[in-house]
């Protein structure tokens, strides 16, 4: 195993660990906000490590750029959707609280 491959494997394993942690969080955390936290933070980090691992493995700057863009777009999309879900939930809670307060 070359050093090259070793780095790839380490990066992939670390990435998988974060994914696993994120998934556990989604399954085990009590409420929506902490679940979203686990999902977006840990999974984006995990994806980042896996993307980095793949970039090292392919070892071509052009491919690395593409992989970087994949990561970037996923990051953007997931953070936006996380934000929208959270906002929706918050509005719901506020209207609910408002009604109870009346």
């Amino acid at each position, binding site marked *: 195993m070359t050093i090259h491959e070793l780095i790839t494997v380490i990066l992939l394993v670390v990435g998988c660990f974060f994914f696993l942690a994120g998934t556990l969080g989604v399954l085990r955390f009590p409420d929506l906000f902490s679940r979203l936290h686990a999902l977006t933070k840990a999974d984006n980090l995990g994806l980042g490590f896996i993307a980095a691992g793949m970039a090292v493995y392919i070892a071509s700057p052009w491919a690395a750029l593409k992989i970087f863009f994949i990561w970037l*777009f996923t990051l*953007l999309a997931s953070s*936006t959707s996380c934000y*929208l879900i959270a906002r929706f939930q918050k509005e*719901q809670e506020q209207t609910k609280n408002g009604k109870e307060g009346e």
Partner: protein
Amino acid sequence: MSVLIDGLLAILAIYLALQSLLAPRLIKSVFLFFAFGLALALAWVRLGAVDVAITEAAIASGFLGVLFLDALRDFSPAFPAKQKNPEAAHNVLVKNNTKSLLLSRIPLGLGLGLFLLIALEAVWKTPEGGGLTAAAEAFLPESGVEHPVTAVLLNFRAYDTWLEIGVILMGLLAIFAVGGIKVYRKPNMAAQDPMLRQVIMFFTPVLFLFGAFLLYFGKTGPGGAFQAAVLWGAIGILLHLGGKSIIEEIPRWLRQLILTVGILFFLVLGFLFVAGGNALFEYPRAYAGLLILIIETLAAISIAAALTAIFANLNQMKEDPNETESIN
């Protein structure tokens, strides 16, 4: 190793399919359906069908999933519950009688099990027909494109593809026929939300570029009109959600033109060939590549517009308390 991966993927797809039908809550069903689509897309990649994978992920899982999600606003109990009619309420009571339900399911289960066994034997024993790979390979140089799937879609079996563009247009007409669509009303989500607006502004050009890329490179590699159309359709959907529905805000004649230009150009071109003594869709060999690119571009525009309009119309299908009485 590869058998292991494929086997796991197959089991995952079956599990997700079952769960999306059995999940107790509708929202769970829809999300599992998303996941099922992605599992299938992975299966297509494993089988070397990259074009199919993109189409599956984009249309069957992506676009349809978005439609399902949007529909959940109607059905989801989180929204103000409607007055159910007594018949339906009674029916719910009947349904809860699980014992009779179980009994009625047993024959169905047995029948399906038997059917599954026969089906498994039939697919297992399928003789090797050989397919049409050799024929496609032989005629590929004459088709005007280098990617075999595009050659089949836009040249060898262009008739099917043309009909299919018609089917999408018909799907939109059919949704109009259902009725219940109110006059276009601007959703004002983006107005209140700077973040959403920024994201839409960022993604619109990116999606457009990527769609154009898929369209142009459909000539030589995976991609093509349908895949590009979904990406462009996604622009339309995003803009619609952001309060700027391009398809609703342009003049009527232009909208109709955009919706129909794909099928019309394809057909009129075909008729011209017929008038010239050729068959329908029989391109002159020298111009085949160019004509296919033009047809694909126009088709992608039309399909994108149709998908946007389908979403926009379903999205605006909201209840109107006055209407329930007037109809019936």
